[in-house]
């Protein structure tokens, strides 16, 4: 018996839960002021989330998936990606979407049951939210292959949850990305839960990162509550991909502090103590502590930021709520480039006010 292959999975953390550096910080992070943007993005995401949940509670928004506790991921991804890169998100990438220029009013429209929420005026090539988990990984393969075929130095980033990594299409996508060495980063938000199924029941793999071993490329773990580590690891993976170094799987270890969605009641399946324990890892507090300790953030700035975020979010809500509903004909008008003759009668019947059943 001989050993023919060996693999390792590395883990990166720069800031401990109290915000103290536990390793030499990457270049970008040495000037704490440069981390302020990262922090601001996290706070804005949290403000948006809280407002969205509140809107749902009062019947002004549909089911919503909060990112509470996972804000570092979106903020770091937003900084690590170039504008010309393409994000292929699941439903929990609110932070990254905002950072990439999707309007908050558009996000509200989407969750408010209006297709116009996915007609982004910002990152025009980014994919819309994908609800069927992991299915979007395949799209990311196509997008990354398109970049390769056109010789463009662009990168696709596909994001999904820990539960999604049990699905076949996730693996088919990893495998294809490996074969073609595509400029593609798979980012897994391992928030420990897939609705009520804990990470330990989802897979016997010690890490999610090691799933990349099956596809023949690098997988690594990062502290998903450490925005600095996330940005460093994601930037490295994205730049490696951009330079032809092939795909990377990045597992961000974090925790879903919220319910799965507003339709879920997590207290049915997980103990309150588990959740409160994880509050000690809060990524927002962690980075704030770091900034405060470094003298780069003060109470007044915090208050101003909260105020600004509240106003920004409120403006988005107003914009969302002021938009009149779509025309009934919209049910037909985007189905095909041109409405097939066979559908004309149905469209007319709908406009006449329903019916038209022959």
């Amino acid at each position, binding site marked *: 018996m001989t050993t023919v292959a060996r693999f390792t999975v590395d883990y990166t953390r720069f800031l401990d839960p109290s915000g103290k550096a536990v390793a030499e910080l990457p270049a970008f992070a040495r000037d704490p002021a440069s981390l302020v943007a990262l922090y601001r993005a996290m706070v804005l995401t949290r403000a948006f989330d809280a407002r969205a949940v509140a809107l749902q509670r009062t019947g002004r928004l549909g089911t919503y998936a909060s990112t509470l506790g996972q804000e570092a991921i979106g903020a770091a991804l937003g900084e690590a990606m170039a504008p010309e890169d393409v994000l292929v998100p699941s439903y929990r990438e609110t932070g990254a979407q905002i950072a990439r220029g999707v309007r908050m009013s558009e996000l509200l429209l989407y969750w408010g*049951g209006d297709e116009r929420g996915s007609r982004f005026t910002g990152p025009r090539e980014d994919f819309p939210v994908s609800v069927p988990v992991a299915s979007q990984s395949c799209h990311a393969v196509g997008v990354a292959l398109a970049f390769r075929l056109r010789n463009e130095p662009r990168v696709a980033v596909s994001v999904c949850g820990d539960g999604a990594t049990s699905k076949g299409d996730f693996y088919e996508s990893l495998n294809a990305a490996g074969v073609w060495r595509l400029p593609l980063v798979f980012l897994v938000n391992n928030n420990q839960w*897939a609705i009520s199924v804990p990470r330990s029941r989802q897979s016997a793999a010690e890490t999610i990162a090691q799933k990349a071993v099956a596809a023949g490329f690098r997988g690594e773990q990062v502290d998903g509550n450490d925005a600095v580590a996330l940005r460093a690891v994601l930037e490295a993976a994205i730049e490696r991909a951009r330079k032809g170094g092939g795909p990377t799987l990045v597992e961000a270890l974090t925790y879903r502090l919220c319910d799965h969605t507003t339709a879920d009641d997590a207290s049915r399946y997980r103990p309150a103590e588990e959740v409160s324990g994880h509050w000690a890892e809060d990524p927002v507090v962690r980075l704030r502590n770091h900034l405060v300790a470094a003298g780069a953030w003060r109470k007044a700035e915090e208050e101003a930021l909260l105020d600004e975020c509240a106003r920004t979010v409120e403006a988005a809500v107003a914009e969302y709520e002021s938009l009149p509903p779509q025309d009934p004909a919209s*049910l037909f008008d985007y189905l095909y480039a041109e409405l097939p003759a066979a559908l004309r009668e149905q469209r007319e019947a709908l406009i006449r006010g329903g019916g038209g059943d022959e």
Partner: protein
Amino acid sequence: MSENGGTTLVEAVNLALARELERDPSVVVLGEDVGVNGGVFRATAGLQRRFGEARVLDTPLAETLIAGMSVGLAAQGFRPVAEIQFMGFIHSTLDQMLNHAARLRNRTRGRLTCPMVLRAPFGGGIHAPEHHSESTEALFAHIPGLRVVIPSSPARAYGLLLAAIRDPDPVVFLEPKRIYRALKEPVADDGQALPLDACFVLREGRDVTLVTWGALVRETLAAADTLAGEGVEAEVIDVATVKPLDTETILASVARTGRCVIVHEAARSGGVGAEIAAVLAERGLTTLLAPVVRVTGYDTVMPLYRLEHLYLPDEARILAAVRGVMEYA
């Protein structure tokens, strides 16, 4: 089971599952979040606590696996009852259901069989997110070797689910989630199954036959009441098993009434309503006094929830169609 004496449809599903888990040690319930969480709609609430983790299993998040492992369990003599969380996620089971579940008995000339049930909530009208409102029963209804069963009331959910679990062949069991809790009726937990492959005539009438299933049975019955006030007596048929179809009951009814309106929520083209209309055109032609009309979802993607009311057939559309059919000379 409920406060005011009645049982909801989702509670009836729960009762039927519990009854069969109790009665038959070969029954196992599996799916995403069916264990501790009791299912996102609470259809499996309490079952894991009562029957243990070996009988009520949370699976990894993988629908193809859920269907495929059910085939394996069934071939081994178990009776898996698998839940797909929403019908929008059922389509990756199609390969297993069509290529294996529906064929195992035939392929092995009866050596191995596949007594499994694939349950899924389906249909719109609850303001759910994208992919949570699908009605694609027609896809399964085209597959030889499958049964596709759709209850429309708590009592029928109970009796038909018992029958589906006891059936020796694979059954896709689709639960109209819009009426999971919208109506209650007394359901005796007596272990009595209802017949599969048979329509239920819910209301008799001599003037027109209304054929429907699932959540829209409610609107159709309401329309029949309204019509009665106008002097039109509508017969209302709940198809219940949309594969294989009990065409005899439908043909016999239309032979009496001469008129037929079919009501379903799925997109019109290639929906199960098409098969029913086709059977009438083939075997009921001479009895037809008026065109067969379908009141259905449009041939569009189910819109996000703000406009879903435009998509869903309602009583007004049913009434308009019936009045048109009645006026037809």
